[in-house]
């Protein structure tokens, strides 16, 4: 199959922590800041509660990217869940390469409740980056 890059619309699964990033995404809404419709948000209590299995499952099942949004360092509602999330994502990314996935497909970013603009900008940037990477190569294998 020939993939027409122009038409490729990446699927991004987003995990946003309830306290900061989800609120930041809401503020992007109330401020009517436009960004690409490629992300589907799953609300979690804390970025630290995002199990690496969730990320792997999304990628294996065909998502083209995974976004994790947490509070800024020091701001986590549960003290340091965001640090734990960062540590986990570093480990996870290190194995993505070995299974033939670009580690740039997994993004972890800090977005506060007043950073609506930053949320929108980040999602826009991520969507563009993933478009450049092209569709998730692994999902094809699994479709066989």
């Amino acid at each position, binding site marked *: 199959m020939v993939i027409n890059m122009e038409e490729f619309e990446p699927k991004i699964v987003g995990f946003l922590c309830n306290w900061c990033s*989800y609120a930041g995404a809401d503020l992007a809404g109330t401020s*009517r800041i436009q960004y690409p419709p490629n992300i*589907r948000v799953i609300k979690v209590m804390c970025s630290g509660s995002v199990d*690496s299995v969730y990320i792997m499952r999304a990628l294996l099942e*065909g998502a083209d990217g995974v976004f994790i949004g947490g509070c800024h360092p020091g701001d986590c509602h549960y003290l340091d869940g965001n640090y734990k999330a960062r540590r986990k994502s570093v480990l996870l990314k290190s194995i993505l390469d070995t299974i033939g996935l670009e580690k740039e497909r997994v993004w972890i970013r800090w977005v506060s409740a007043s950073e609506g*603009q930053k949320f929108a900008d980040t999602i826009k940037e991520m969507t563009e980056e993933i478009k450049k990477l092209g569709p998730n190569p692994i999902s094809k294998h699994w479709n066989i």
Partner: protein
Amino acid sequence: MGNKSDKIGAVAVIGGGITGIQSSLDLAEMGFKVYLIEKTPAIGGIMAKLDKTFPTNDCSMCILSPKLVDCGRHENIEIITNSEVQAIEGEPGDLIVKVLKKPRYVDLELCTSCGDCTEACPISLPTEFDHGLSERKAIYKYYPQAIPNAFIIDKEGDGEHKGCVDCGKCVKVCKAGAINHDEKPENLKLNVGAVIIATGAQPFDPIIKPEFGYKKYDNVLTSLEFERILSPSGPFKGKIVRPSDQKKPKKIAWVQCVGSRDKSIGNEYCSAMCCMYTAKEAIIAKEHDSNIHPTIFYIDVRSFGKDFDKYIHQAKKEHKIRYVRSRLSEIFEDKKTKNLIVRYEDESGDLKEEIFDMVVLSIGLCTTNARKTFLDKMDLKRNEFDFVEVNPQSPVTVSRPGVFIAGSFIEPKDIPESVMQASAAASKVAELLRHSRGTLVKERKFPAEKNVSEQKPRTGVFVCDCGINIGGYIDVPNVVKFAQSLDNVVFAEEYIYTCSQDTQKKIAETIKKYNLNRLVVAACTPRTHEPVFKRILKEAGLNPHLFEMVNIREQCSWVHMTDKTKATEKAKTLIAMSVAKARLLNPLSDMEVDVTQKALVIGGGVSGMTAALSIADQGYKVFIVEKESSLGGKLRYISYSLEHPDIKKYLADTKEKVLNHKLITTFTDSKLKIIEGFVGNFKTIIETPKGEKEINHGVTIVTVGTQEYVPKSYHYGKDSRVITQRELEKKLGLAKPEEIQNGETYVMIQCVESRDNDRPFCSRTCCIQALKNAIKLKDINPRAEVFIIYRDMMTYGFKERFYKEAREKGIMFLQYDENRKPEVLIDNNMIVKFYEPLMQELLEIPTDYLILSTGLKPSLDNEKIAKMLKVPLNSDGFFLEAHVKLRPVDFSTEGIFVAGTCHSPKFISESISQAFAAASRAGVLLSKDKYKIEANVSLILEDLCRGCGTCVELCPYNAIELKEIDNLGHKMTVATVNSALCKGCGTCSAACLNGAISHLGFTDGQVLAMIDVYSNKGG
């Protein structure tokens, strides 16, 4: 004290800033009805305008908005906005508060906050919230996160700009029918038992100081305006630009003490927080844009609070912020470039000029004529600064019984101190109205829950148009049709407003008619509306956790307004994901644990005694454990005080009250041996001289105080002429002061072995202690020459007046440079030798006595107690509260509180305030016989658990332990979660390699189901 029926179980809180919010939340939680009265259209106060908060650089809105929402949805709090108090009449316990409520012209119940009216409105005005740096319409929302979350019409305008012209366009577009242009002002009479005034202070208006050029030059701003510029939701979306040309400034100057410490305008006090927020603004500005070079013009840097000194150190060393000690004389503008020329006198008295792109005036807080009139009208005494006069031994009590005060209304102060006083005032109210607690609050009764666990999922999907806010950008009928096709969905329908009263009724009917057992609402954000729908479930006899909300407004229609097809596709997927999750939802029970309505106070100093008395006066039993043989702590060593007229009598009276109180048991000469348990259920063993004693209690308060620091330098201990401030105080306090009074010269050195690498914190109290002793010396021996050699005089707030008094009495103040510590040469004579940066001279002062201000150090007990209670200490060894700004007396472990100097060095009045605050926070828990536990806790699946202990390590709340169980004769170790301590973050379940932990409400199964729907098929 009266009978149950005597006093009114309601409270009026005047002022909806962070102080009023905290008082309201405490009182409402204790079981009082609260009227929260606010002048502007929304609560939040100054804190809502701030970008970040020092010293943690927390995002202000992130930490404030949960409190706003809590207030907004609390059943016992009635928020009355746009209103002013006219009079308070009656007796304590039975007061009438007369309130003038101005019309909002928008019905709070009906307004869905969609914003269509603003779009339609033709009138523009400057935004108050952004200090005129942006525009708004005549119908507007006060700020994006405002609570109440509703619009308001400005009919008056602001003098220069006219307001609403009654064109009626908003009425036409408001599908909710929420607008009523004919609304009239109302006069309310609220019957309450007590009043808390927390109206804050007024940010200084620098227009009164024409030399700063404020409002004359475009690029001269106030610090509050600069906060709005920094804020990502502010006028320039967080970009730092000059108002004159929207260009990025490179050189920004901050000018401190604008409107403070200024005799010419009669504000001879320090505003106590400007030094810190200035450093913060400079740091944040640099973080936003590394090309910015901040310069701070200052007189003293008053970094007296907890962890403040480290923050200033960071500002200077890491962020390379330039500090210039100086006095500013004038600011001019270069007409062409709009740059600003700052003319100042530097440390050595030379006049200098420097050009900046932008100048920020660090304004203080002040009183106003309106406030003065208010105080007079309310029959409250004013102090010399025209702020309200308070009793230093009960810092939230004023001359009028039944009325309490808190926050900057009393004296300029920062957020944590305001929050402390807010709780302190609440505890005083709780004492006064203790017999009326719970008389005016209503608990909603809900029908018994249906058991649906055996039923197949029957899901109902309700999709909201939100007028045109969703319907205009998403093809809702198409979405509804799609929803109907999903598995287990037995009902799906479109509504113009799902949150309106009549739709709520319809949803309840639909649940019955279709026998629904899962509910999915696709509308706006769950952050504001989830509670509304959960209540419908409860009313319909369903477990409220059988609910999922899909955010298709904030996170779909509003952010994809130009692509209806894709927005519609996204909405469909989001709904399919939530339906998939809903299918796997289980009813969760809100668990409860019993609360032992007794308190344990560790430490019997002024904080411990105050907390104990307040809790006992609220009606609960208290135990005090004191390791020494008598109560009083460090207060026993204080002979006299500048603020407290008769401190010895105060101590004696307080001790007597404690010892005679029926509800207080004191154990002196006693120590904690074991403390175990959790919120509501602690069990403690105390070693007393009469043997061990076991007590049960529901809350624990830590008030173990501090220790005096004993200096090693300056020949201390080797030469009897070298003494500490406390030793001097003791000698001067004797009825017949010893020979010490006969000296000719006294030199006091401040910050001895303190504020340096080894003890990098300010002890806050030593400057005042030095002033107090110096003044006393002068009073006894007017001919004595007294020198105070200092780094920064930390005479913050109204304490500035003692600095002034000392100068007037002829006490001499000389500075030294922190990098060139004074030296002391001793043979027969004693000479203090140091470099004075103001005079730029090396000085030598021969002296008879050398007095060292050495400050405090954390008590040796801190570590032991911290370990026993599993609560943290900061890097200096003081107890670390749950949140520096908003939870200043709570620990992150529920049910344990802190007050007094073991939290950080502080003055007597401040310890008293904090102790009252701890009493209030404790009172919130003690007022209930059951404590509600979060439903979204973690649960261990013992069959899968291998007892590896990873989760035990990771849990931020020490809520997980390993225990041994018997599994069919095999002993095995598994983890177990104490639900009373778990806060439901889900960290443990994410880390468990065996999938043995289920994060209720967010189980792996549920999240994976959502992921699969989208990754596999969803568009």
